């Protein structure tokens, strides 16, 4: 465990990207098998250990440490895992600063994976007794999921690639076909064969778009499509099996059996937008209407789907792209050529479940701008611009794809509650619950929460907001502070919908803080009614 916890410490404190890569590469080369593979999974965020909840950790700590001192410490340090790692009193006769070497990373993960919820606290406590504070931190982060050491999955894979002199894009290509602890990957690194995942369905990283800030593009070089408000989906068919993957590469096949069944037997990899049939966004003029994101949300996150759900919220996919046709990899082709192949391929699919995203016909960029402005009435988020000759490449590459969203809507809210952030923000109150008035506050109107926002501010503003929260706290509810309802914040958002889950009856999409309005009295913040009028 010590080598791994030292790697994490190193990554936390190292600033330069190259130095981080060197640390990861050195660990990958030196750690024994399969520690190296588990560490790689932990760093890329591909390790899921289900059993341990934060409440279990609190419970074992409160058995050994005065709960009041623990709560004070937690409030001071911010992060639960770090607090526990620092104050854990060992029950065995050994200094707190010594990792006795009895636990290897693989043994720890092996044990955690098989752990039942009831036995978790006891086992965890025993493990903590053998580690130093760095080791305890690493263990608790592993056990609760999410290391948050400030490195991306890409950086971890690059570190692995660097350790063995492999091209990182080659690693990305096979990554999702493999699983932790990645024995085949390390065998390849040590001079073996590159893993060949053909025949098994696996996820390929999506191509993503940059926002189009102020620039302008020539429509001779770029094709325009509507930007649909659903979720990106990748359909992978091997001829025998078919899988649906979300943007993050999660397998969502079981959640959308209607779509999966409709394309059973295909042998291709397709990219599209998963939507629910309906009328809320777009019309026939836009290549077909779809229901709002809110309708799709009824279907998301379910492990099993009822027949009622399937008939009330029937899903379909609006196709954007084709990556593989049979075993033929089309990703090196330009967008126009892939589009031709996609249109040809789509004729074989069930038209009630699949259509091809329409290309917008606009004479030039200015004309497209007018069309985009007009799309607000049809509740469309904006347009996508895709370079006609660009290959399909993973991630966001400058100059290839752009999203050109319509301007956001804004509303003035009042800060009601604040909570500490995560990772490097864990010592700051950076997550805010914001409210609007049910009626004129002078006539007894009250604030009801309408949004949570935790982005859109600068570091300087965050410091100011953090001290505002600390100096205006009315009540503490665990990690949440209720603040004096005096601070107005202008919130930008993409759209607003009906919501039965919120007392206010509305839910915003992508709320973020546009401006802190210290100048504005809280009574002048907006009414919920104003927000309702913006429902699309």
């Amino acid at each position, binding site marked *: 465990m010590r080598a791994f916890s030292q790697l994490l410490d190193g990554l936390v404190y190292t600033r330069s990207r190259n130095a981080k890569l060197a640390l990861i590469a050195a660990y990958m080369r030196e750690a024994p098998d399969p520690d190296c593979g588990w560490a790689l999974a932990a760093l890329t965020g591909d390790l899921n250990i289900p059993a341990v909840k934060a409440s279990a950790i609190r419970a074992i700590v409160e058995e050994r440490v*005065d709960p009041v001192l623990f709560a*004070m410490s937690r409030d001071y*340090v911010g992060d639960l895992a*770090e607090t526990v790692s620092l104050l854990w009193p060992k029950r065995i006769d050994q200094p707190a600063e010594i990792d006795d070497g009895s636990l290897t990373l693989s043994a720890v993960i092996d044990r955690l994976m098989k752990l039942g919820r009831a036995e978790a606290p006891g086992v965890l406590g025993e493990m903590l007794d053998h580690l130093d504070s760095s080791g305890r931190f690493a263990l608790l982060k592993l056990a609760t999921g999410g290391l948050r050491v400030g490195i991306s999955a890409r950086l971890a894979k690059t570190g692995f690639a660097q350790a063995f002199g492999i091209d990182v894009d080659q690693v990305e290509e096979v990554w999702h076909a493999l699983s932790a602890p990645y024995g085949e990957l390390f065998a390849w690194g040590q001079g073996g064969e590159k893993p060949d995942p053909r025949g098994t369905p696996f996820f390929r990283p999506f191509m993503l778009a940059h926002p189009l800030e102020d620039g302008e593009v020539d429509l001779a070089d770029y094709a325009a499509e509507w930007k649909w408000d659903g979720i990106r989906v990748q359909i992978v068919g091997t001829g025998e099996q078919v899988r649906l993957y979300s943007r993050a590469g999660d397998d969502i096949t079981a959640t959308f059996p209607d779509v999966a069944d409709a394309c059973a037997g295909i042998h291709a990899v397709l990219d599209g937008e998963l939507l629910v049939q309906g009328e809320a966004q777009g019309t026939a003029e836009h290549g077909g209407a779809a229901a709002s994101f809110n309708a799709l949300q009824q279907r998301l996150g379910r492990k099993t789907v009822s027949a009622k759900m399937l008939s009330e919220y029937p899903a379909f996919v609006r196709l954007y792209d084709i990556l593989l046709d049979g075993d033929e990899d089309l990703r090196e082709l330009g967008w126009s050529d892939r589009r031709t192949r996609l249109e040809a391929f789509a004729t074989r699919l069930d038209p009630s479940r699949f259509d091809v995203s329409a290309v917008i016909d606009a004479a030039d960029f200015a004309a497209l701008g007018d069309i985009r402005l007009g799309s607000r009435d049809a509740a469309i988020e904006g347009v996508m611009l895709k370079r006609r000759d660009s290959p399909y490449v993973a991630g966001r590459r400058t100059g290839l794809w752009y999203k050109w969203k319509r301007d956001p809507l804004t509303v003035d809210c009042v800060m009601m509650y604040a909570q500490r952030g995560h990772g490097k923000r864990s010592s700051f109150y950076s997550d805010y619950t914001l409210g609007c008035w049910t009626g004129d506050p002078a006539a007894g109107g009250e604030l009801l929460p309408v949004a949570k926002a935790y982005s859109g501010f600068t570091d300087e503003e965050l410091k100011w907001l953090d001290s505002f929260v600390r100096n205006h706290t009315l009540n503490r509810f665990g990690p949440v502070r209720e603040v004096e309802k005096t601070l107005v914040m202008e919130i930008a958002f993409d759209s607003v919908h009906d919501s039965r889950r919120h007392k206010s009856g509305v839910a915003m999409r992508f709320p973020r803080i546009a401006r802190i309005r210290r100048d504005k009295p809280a009574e002048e913040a907006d009414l919920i009614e104003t927000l309702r009028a913006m429902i699309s």
Partner: protein
Amino acid sequence: MAHWIEASPRGVYVRPADAWIDPSVPVDRALVTHGHADHARGGHSQVWATPETLAIMALRYGTEVGTSVAYGETISLGGVDATWVPAGHVLGSAQILLEHAGERIVVTGDYKRRADPTCAPFEPIPCDIFITEATFGLPVFRHPPIEQEIDKLLGALHASPDRCVLVGAYALGKAQRVIAEVRARGHHDPIYIHGAMERMCDLYRDFGIDLGELHSATAASADQLRGKIVVSPPSALNDRWSRRLPDPITAMASGWMRVRQRARQKNVELPLVISDHADWDELTATIREVAPSETWVTHGREEGLVHWCETHQMKARALALVGYEDEDEG
């Protein structure tokens, strides 16, 4: 108990002596525990302190003079006997033992229990009222052995011979302690120091503390600094001053470095958990040892230490004195 002493936000007031201990504003009579600026402020009419503390104050405030009281020496002011006893915090640091009307009160100022080659060790004094600091008054604060931290520093230095290790350390106390401990680990290369700590290092030497070969970092070329230790005040770590150093590894010596986010906020790559304050175990062990009938907590994480006392059936209260905590000092 002890109607002759009271706490106000400005400091601890000893009524019969009409004197303040470590007052935060100028007063007539000040009894000073140690030379840190938050305890030893300028502008008092009369000051009593150890000779080392007076020398430090003179260095900072110019010609200020006061009455020098050696460790163990007792003075009498308005019927109160005051004795300066080593606190182990920095050179010249003292607890002040006050005796009056059959009662004994100890004001610790800042203190620590670990060995420190640059100052006299803390001496526990049994008393009725123990007025203590609590900078690290939460159980998350446990300082590791200093040898371990110095070895981390030397390890980083030897692993990167083309770089230098820039150690942020408080100019009074921490800097000299780190240098002396580095020497004690057998590292005798010249150490380069920031201009702001040159006079303080000279003062330590005048009092007989050996710091080995020190040079001005400002006068040295980048090439001379490769593979060397450079010590600067914490404020200079991310400042323009440090840009001329050869690819420095930024270290910081402070008890706060125990908390990852604290280290990251300061852009520290090599956190060294070295503190001149008592950690949680030392604070609680000291209270047990001096066994007061009441503990008053002057500053720091007061609520933690007060809670501990109460759960151990000891009377305690937080004084919430202001102006005693300097972020960088720790």
